[in-house]
């Protein structure tokens, strides 16, 4: 049989394309799975519906025939699918090493190669087994304004403006999307796409695996070709960094794109550009004639998909983080307690504890002496108890039912850039006004910090600079002052207002960056409040996580760009 012709094409890589099992990366992908998940994966492959994409090697002749082909094999191929299935089910009950299974797969039943589909399944299995391995970045899908007229397009007017009035969630159709996305991918890269729906998560996962090759046949994935350089290239091309996951949450105008975490400078740059390519391609693939979309990054970056879904998925929780979550309870009990037909007075939070205290009193009746004795002995303990309860109440008020350590919705890192002016005690302000000129001369706005900027910083600062010119709050403050005719000493106040604004503008703004790390950052803050280390009443709102971002710039104590923050 003549080998199939390999012609450069723009088509995508077919799922049935086989990769040589001697490829290092395949061994790597398989060996990082645990034995049980590996076996269940193999049984999935052996499913009748998957036979077109991942057929194992079976003997064609009947067992009675004389055959010598596989005689010397360690893993002779099976005669039928059911036999093979039995074999692997047996392995499930038996103890053994993972190596055994991997060897059986690579040297036995799939010695002619694993298809890209199988690799994708193995990769996804690893992702489900270890859900914290990928970092997800959130993007918002926004609709662009449709140009009214052709002239507008020519004149570049209202062309790339975001249409704020529409809240349309684009309809997502997987195969159409893939077709469009493939059209956006450059012809010298080939991608393999695989859709999957993880159990228990309301989202659709798309795995994109990219290879640098103009061909979509065996040539793209063969490592066994003669030239050494080609081999080397193929090996790098199978790196995990070339895999990108895109998650489409159901009924939400957001998408999540995975950030690979592999180190190494060259692959890093490569991955970044690849990611940029995909991120650029996605809105185009979603768009249709007269319905264009763009992606806007939301400063949310976390490893926890559950947290991501509760912040940006569908449902009630996506705009009610932090203490606002008390309004977003979605359980049947909530519906009953909040029904207007429920005549019971709502119980205030922690009222269970009030009951508890009563109980204590009743049960202590018997040994009242000891109890009173104890209380008389330690007024500090009683006081402490009171404070602890207050702290818990405050935590409840600030966090509601959110940010519990065991709710599985923890973000692991929060970065905040504080842009507030350094607070000066009131007595110093007068002095400062006096020598403001001198101050000004000495201290230009420390907008541009020296040294290396982190990526977060740079993007946020850029945004800040852009917005600084038209700070709506300041504008409105001006308007108010001007529009206030009843004020008698208007000029003076205006002057002071000007002063105040100047001071605000020219005040010393130290470059403070705050990074909070931990398995569940906001639950940690909650615990600190409950333990009395943080004053929950004076704590700024962004520390409750109610803004739903993990990176942000704080101005006037509020995260910039958050709905309703006025910034």
């Amino acid at each position: 049989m003549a080998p199939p012709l390999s012609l450069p094409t723009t088509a995508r890589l077919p799922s049935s394309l086989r990769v040589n099992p001697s490829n290092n990366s395949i061994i790597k992908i398989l060996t990082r799975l645990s034995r049980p998940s590996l076996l269940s994966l193999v049984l999935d492959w052996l499913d009748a519906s998957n036979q077109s994409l991942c057929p194992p090697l079976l003997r064609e002749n009947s067992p009675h025939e004389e055959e010598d082909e596989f005689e010397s094999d360690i893993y002779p191929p099976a005669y039928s699918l059911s036999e093979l299935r039995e074999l692997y089910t047996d392995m499930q009950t038996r103890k053994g090493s993972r190596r055994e299974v991997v060897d059986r797969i690579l040297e036995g039943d799939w010695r002619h190669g694993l298809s890209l589909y199988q690799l994708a399944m193995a990769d996804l299995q690893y992702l489900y087994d270890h859900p914290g391995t990928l970092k997800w970045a959130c993007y918002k899908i926004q609709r662009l304004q449709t140009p009214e007229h052709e002239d507008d397009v020519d004149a570049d007017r209202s062309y790339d403006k975001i249409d704020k009035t529409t809240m349309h969630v684009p309809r997502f159709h997987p195969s159409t999307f893939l077709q469009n996305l493939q059209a956006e991918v450059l012809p010298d890269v080939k991608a393999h796409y695989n859709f999957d729906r993880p159990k228990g998560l309301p989202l659709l996962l798309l795995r994109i695996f990219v290879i640098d090759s103009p061909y979509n046949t065996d040539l793209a994935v063969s490592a066994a070709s003669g030239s050494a350089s080609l081999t080397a290239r193929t090996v790098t091309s199978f790196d995990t960094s070339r895999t990108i996951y895109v998650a489409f949450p159901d009924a939400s105008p957001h998408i999540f794109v995975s950030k690979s975490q592999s180190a190494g400078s060259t692959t890093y740059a490569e991955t970044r550009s690849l990611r940029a390519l995909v991120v650029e391609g996605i809105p185009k693939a979603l768009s249709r004639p007269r319905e264009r979309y763009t992606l806007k990054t939301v400063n949310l970056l976390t490893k926890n998909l559950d947290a991501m879904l509760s912040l940006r998925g569908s449902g009630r929780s996506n705009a009610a983080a932090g203490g606002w979550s008390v309004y977003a309870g979605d359980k049947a009990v909530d519906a009953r307690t909040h029904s207007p037909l429920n005549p019971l007075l709502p119980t205030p939070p922690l009222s269970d504890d009030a009951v508890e205290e009563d109980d204590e009193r009743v049960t202590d009746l018997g040994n009242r002496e000891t109890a009173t004795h104890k209380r008389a002995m330690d007024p500090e303990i009683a006081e402490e108890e009171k404070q602890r309860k207050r702290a818990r109440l405050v935590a409840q008020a600030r966090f509601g039912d959110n940010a519990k350590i065991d709710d599985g919705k923890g973000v692991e890192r929060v970065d905040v850039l504080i842009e507030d002016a350094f607070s000066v005690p009131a007595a110093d302000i007068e002095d400062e006004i006096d020598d403001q000129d001198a101050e000004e001369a000495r201290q230009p706005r420390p907008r541009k910090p020296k040294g290396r900027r982190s990526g977060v910083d740079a993007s946020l600062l850029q945004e800040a600079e852009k917005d600084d010119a038209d700070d709506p709050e300041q504008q409105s403050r001006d308007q108010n002052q001007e529009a206030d005719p009843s004020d008698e000493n208007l000029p003076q106040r205006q002057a002071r207002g000007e002063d105040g604004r100047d001071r605000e503008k020219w005040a010393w703004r130290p470059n403070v960056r705050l990074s909070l790390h931990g398995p569940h950052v906001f639950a940690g803050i909650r615990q600190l409040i409950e333990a009395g280390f943080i004053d929950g009443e004076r704590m700024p709102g962004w520390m409750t996580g109610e803004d739903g971002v993990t990176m942000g710039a704080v101005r006037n104590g509020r995260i910039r760009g958050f709905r309703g923050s006025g910034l």
Partner: protein
Amino acid sequence: MAAIFPDRETASDIVYGIDAIVKRDGTIDLRQRSLDAVVGHNDEHKPIYRPSYDLSSIAVYDNLNFINRVRELACSNRLNLEQKFAKDMILTYLVPLESLKNDVKLQATTLMTADSTRQILQSKTTGHQRSGTSEAVKQRLLAQFQEQSAHKQQCLYRACATITTFKVNDPDPNAVDGGNVLGLRFEIMSKAKFVRPYYVMLNRPYANRRYAWPLNTCLPPPAKGDEDPPKKQDLSRFARTLRRELVRYHNRAALIGDMKKAAGLGSKKALGQELDTAIVDISAADAEAKQISMQWRDGRSGRLIMNDDGDIVKMVVQGDNGRDRETVRQFLGGAVRVEDVTKRLDSH
């Protein structure tokens, strides 16, 4: 020896041979033993604590009093429970205890809001002479009464007006406008029940200018609200439009549910196994519940699109060989609204 004590008790109860512990929330901690192991045995095998014995008094006892009573009996060494009986007791008393407690609360609430209660509380003469100590209690009750009747009024408004406003204080010390937040509450009825209200929280970041909403907890994208600055802000119009959208959404969702039922696809799985209807699946295809996807047994699949109000816009059925217009014609039968289709399906 039996078995059931609140978890405040410690060593002294273990002396009595406690195996199970009732927690304050009414659940029972068996300390990892099975239910059968709850009870220890005493010398005599005569249970005196019959299920019929004290049911009426439990209704007014709270959890703790009940437990105390059990303990009292146990201490006087009269209580003796057989294994089976203990199970009975747990099932008859402690499991319904929560609902009984709720009943007590409900009764108390009803009593509190009754007009006669108010009269008794407000009358100066009675009770004042009889018991000198009741004055403080009466004051407390009166305060509770007022609270309760305010709540009653609020519930009435909520149930009838369906859009109500309330004030919230943002606990954030740096909050916009001193933390003043206006809350809109939308009551929506679905399946003859009030669903969890939808809330919209509004604050005023720019004085005299406009409201913005920090919170928007509704699933369907809301109305073409008056968000644009050039348009004049009109809160009541916004609230009305949003409510309309919400009601429409729930109506559409209910329509799809009705159609499902009419096609013989009940919600129960037992039903689903034995059904042999022509249509095997009907479900909402998008978040706004405007599209219905249908699956026929023979592999045809269809999509029905309705508009906001439930009028049929378009329907397409894809069969094995391309579009199947005949099925569409049969399915719709000249129907204009989705309800008509449901009726047709129902009559078949």
